[in-house]
C-alpha cells in the first residue's frame, strides 16, 4: 500500500523562490502534512512548515495544495491519483517568510482593532442565563480555528493588496457578527463593521465558506445577516435622520 509520489514544493523567502521537485514515499492513510514531515526527516531538514496539532483543531498548517487553500493535516493523500503531482505553495494573500510559512500578522492586527466583548451585568445570583437556542448562532462562529484560509481565498484582498487596510476579511467580519449575535454583549459594532471592517466590500461570492475546514456557513450565517443588520440600522429613516442631524450639528 506504499507508493512513490511526485511532490512540488515552493521554497524560498521574501526575495523570491521556486518550486522544487521531490519524490517521496507515501503510506496508506497519510495526509499531506505527513509527507512534508517525511521530506524534513529524509531530504530537506530545513523545510519551513507551520503545524501544531495535526488533527484539524489548531489551524496552523494552512497552505495551497494544487492551488486550493487547505489544511495540510486534513488533506488525505488518498484523494490524489497515485501518479498525480501534488503541488504545495504558501498562502498567496500573505507575505512569505520562508518556504510554506507566511507572515499572517495582518490577521492579528485586524483582531486587535475590534472593540472588545462587553457583557451585561450578571443576574442577582451571580449567573448569566441564556437559552441554548440563543447561544448557538454565535457558537457556530466560535468553532473557527483561525486557519485564515478564508482570509487567503477572499478575492477582496487576495488580488488587491491595497484593500487590506480597509477590509477585515471574512474571519473578522464573522467575529463582528458573532459579537452582534452574542446574547450578553452590549456594544454596537455595526458602524465599525462598515467603516473599519469594510463589510460593504464583501460581495458574497462564498469562497470563504467553501474553503472553511470547520464547515462554518460564513457567508449565509454571518456575513449576509450582518449586512442585513447594518442596513436595518443605517437606513431606518428615523435612525438615518437622527444620525444625519447629529453629524451636521457637530461639524
Amino acid at each position, binding site marked *: 500500500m506504499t507508493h512513490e509520489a511526485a511532490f512540488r514544493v515552493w521554497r524560498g523567502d521574501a526575495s523570491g523562490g521556486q518550486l522544487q521537485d521531490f519524490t517521496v514515499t507515501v503510506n496508506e*492513510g497519510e495526509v499531506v502534512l505527513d509527507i512534508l514531515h517525511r521530506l524534513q*526527516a529524509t531530504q530537506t*531538514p530545513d523545510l519551513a512548515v507551520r503545524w*501544531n496539532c*495535526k488533527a484539524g483543531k489548531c489551524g496552523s498548517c494552512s497552505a495551497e495544495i494544487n492551488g486550493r487553500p487547505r489544511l495540510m493535516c486534513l488533506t488525505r493523500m488518498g484523494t490524489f491519483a497515485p501518479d498525480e503531482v501534488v503541488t504545495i505553495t504558501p498562502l498567496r494573500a500573505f507575505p512569505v517568510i520562508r518556504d510554506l510559512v507566511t507572515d499572517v500578522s495582518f490577521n492579528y492586527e485586524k483582531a*486587535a482593532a475590534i472593540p472588545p466583548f462587553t457583557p451585561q451585568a450578571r443576574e442577582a445570583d451571580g449567573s448569566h442565563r441564556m437559552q441554548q437556542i440563543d447561544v448557538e448562532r454565535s*457558537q457556530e462562529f466560535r468553532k473557527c480555528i483561525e486557519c485564515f484560509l478564508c482570509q487567503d481565498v477572499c478575492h477582496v484582498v487576495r488580488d488587491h493588496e491595497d484593500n487590506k487596510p480597509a477590509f477585515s476579511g471574512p474571519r473578522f467580519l464573522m467575529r463582528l457578527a458573532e459579537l452582534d449575535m452574542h446574547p450578553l454583549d452590549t456594544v454596537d459594532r455595526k458602524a465599525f463593521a462598515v467603516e473599519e471592517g469594510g463589510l460593504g466590500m464583501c460581495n458574497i461570492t462564498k469562497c470563504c465558506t467553501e474553503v472553511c475546514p*470547520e464547515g462554518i456557513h460564513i457567508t449565509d450565517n454571518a456575513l449576509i445577516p450582518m449586512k442585513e443588520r447594518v442596513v436595518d440600522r443605517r437606513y431606518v429613516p428615523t435612525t438615518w435622520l437622527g444620525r444625519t442631524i447629529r453629524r451636521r450639528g457637530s461639524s
Partner: protein
Amino acid sequence: MTELERHDYDVVVIGAGGAGLRAAIEAHEQGARTAVVCKSLLGKAHTVMAEGGIAAAMGNVYPEDGWKVHFRDTMRGGKMLNHWRMAQLHAQEAPDRVRELEDWGALFDRTPDGLISQRDFGGHRYARLAHVGDRTGLELLRTLQQRAVALGIDVYMECTVTRLLTADDGRICGAFGYWRESGRFLALQAPSVVLATGGIGKSYKVTSNSWEYTGDGHSLALQAGATLVNMEFVQFHPTGMVWPPSVRGILVTESVRGDGGVLKNSAGNRFMFDYIPDYFRKETAETEEEADRWYVDKKNNRRPPELLPRDEVARAINSEVKAGRGSPHGGVFLDIASRRDADYIRKRLPSMYHQFKELAEVDITAEAMEVGPTCHYVMGGVEVDPETAAAVVPGLFAAGEVAGGMHGSNRLGGNSLSDLLVFGRRAGTAAAAYAKATTVAALPETALTEAATAALAPFAREGGENPYTIQHDLQEAMNELVGIIRTAAEIEQALARIEELKLRVQALTVEGHRQYNPGWHLALDLPHMLRVSECIARAALERQESRGGHTREDFPGPQDEWAALNVICRYDGDGVALSRQPLPVMPPDLAEIFEETA
C-alpha cells in the same frame, strides 16, 4: 552581547496556552508590565486540543455537587498522592474561574433553565464538566486570547526560550531565547517568570500531544535550580485513534463514553466489567443493565466501568489487546453508534464525528471506532507552593501541566482545564506581587553569551546525523521501555539509550541557516526532551510499586510504604539526582471527607 534585542518587564510568562494566558491576564490586571512568549502563533497552543470540558462543581445539573465532592473525586482519582492543598484550592475556585470566562465572552452549552450545562466524565461522581460540544479547549483558549488582546498584553509569537537567567544569588532575572522567524536572539529581563509550557508527550511515539510538548519548561526549571515532583506519573489516555498509522495517538474524547459509548473487545464483550478494581468496586455498576440505567438515573444506579479513571481503563485496554482480543489494528472498539441515534452523536460530539470522517473515513454514527492508549499528559512537574504556584527558585512560578502535585498519580478528565485557570490565575497574582516587592537583578552577560554560543553550536559541526533521527529513536525508546507497563530491566535499558542519545545530540548537524529552520529548532529541543525523559525513567525506576499512571509489572499494586512518598528530581549540573520526600499531610477536617464515604 551588544547586538542582542532586549526588553524589560515585571512578569514574563512562557507559554500561551490556558495557564499562560490566564496568568498573564491576572498579572496585567494587578498592574504588572507583562509579556507572554510562545513558540507558536497566538491561539494555537495545545489547549485547543482539549475536548470534553472544564471540571467545576457548579451544581447546575446536580445541586448535590460541591467542592468537597470534587476534591474527594480528584484525590481518589490521583490515588491520594495529590498535594491536598492544590486539590482543595482547585475544587473550591474552579466554579468562579468558569463563570469569569462567560464575562469574557465564552459561550458554553446551556441547561434547560439557561445555566452552564455540565456533562459526565470518568471518575467524577456528578455531571460536572462545563463544555461546548467537544471543543471546550478551543473555547477556553480563544476566550483568554481575546481577553489578552483586549487588554493589550505584549505577545512574543513564534519565539522560543532556551534558557532561564538567574542572578548570582540564584533568583530569576529573565529569559533568553530566539525568534523562530529570523533566528535572532533576544533577552527578556524580569524579576518574575511564569512557566506555562505544558507537557512532555513528544518524547513518546504514540501521543496525543503536538510538537510543542518537548518538556522544555520542565527542563528549564531544572536548569535554573527548581525541583520536579512525581515525574514517573505519565497519563496514557485510554482512547486514542489507532488507524490509519499516521493519526495513531490522536485523542478520542472521554465524552464519547460520558455520553453513552462503551468499550468492546473482538468478541463483542464489554470487557471493562472484568477490570473493576476493589478500590472503585462500591461505586461501579456490576451489570450492563445497571450501567445503562445510570445514564438516566444517577441517584439509584452506579457508574459504568467504562468511566473508571483513565489509568484503569488504559491498562484494561492494554491487557485485552495483549490477550489477543483486540480490534484489527491493535486497539479495541469504542461503540456509540449502536447506543445513541445519529443526531444525538453529531450534536454532542461534532468534532469527533468530523475527525473520524476526515482522517479515518469512519462514520461514528454508523460503526464503532478503533481506539487504544496514547501518551496524553504528565502528572509530574515543577514542585510548587499551592497558594502562589512559586517554585523553589525565587521569582520562578509554574502553572498548568508543567506544574506537579495537583493531580497525584493520575489526573481525572476535565481537571486539566480547571487546573489551568485556577493556578494560572494564582501564578499571575503571585508573580505580580513578587515583582512589585523586589528589584530585578542585572542580566548576567556571560550567561547570555554562553546561551547564544550553545544555540549556534549545531551549525558549526559538519557530517553529523540529522536531529529527526535522534528524536525518532528517543520516541521509540520511551514508548517501548517506559510506556504504560514498566519493568526495572526495561527502564534501565531506556536509561542506557538516553545516555547514547545524549552523545548523539552533541554531534548532530543542522543544515541551512537561522531563518525559520525547523531542523535547528528541533536540535535545540532535543536536550530538553532527553532531560525530561531521563527524569521520567529515573523516577519510574525509583518507585517500586504500581499506582495511577505508573505501572510496574515487577511491583504490582500500590505499596503502603510508597503511599505517602514523592520522588523529587533535581539537576546537579551533570545529570538528574533523585530524592524521596514525604507527602504533605492532609488536615483532619479534610481527611474526614474520605472516612465518611469510604
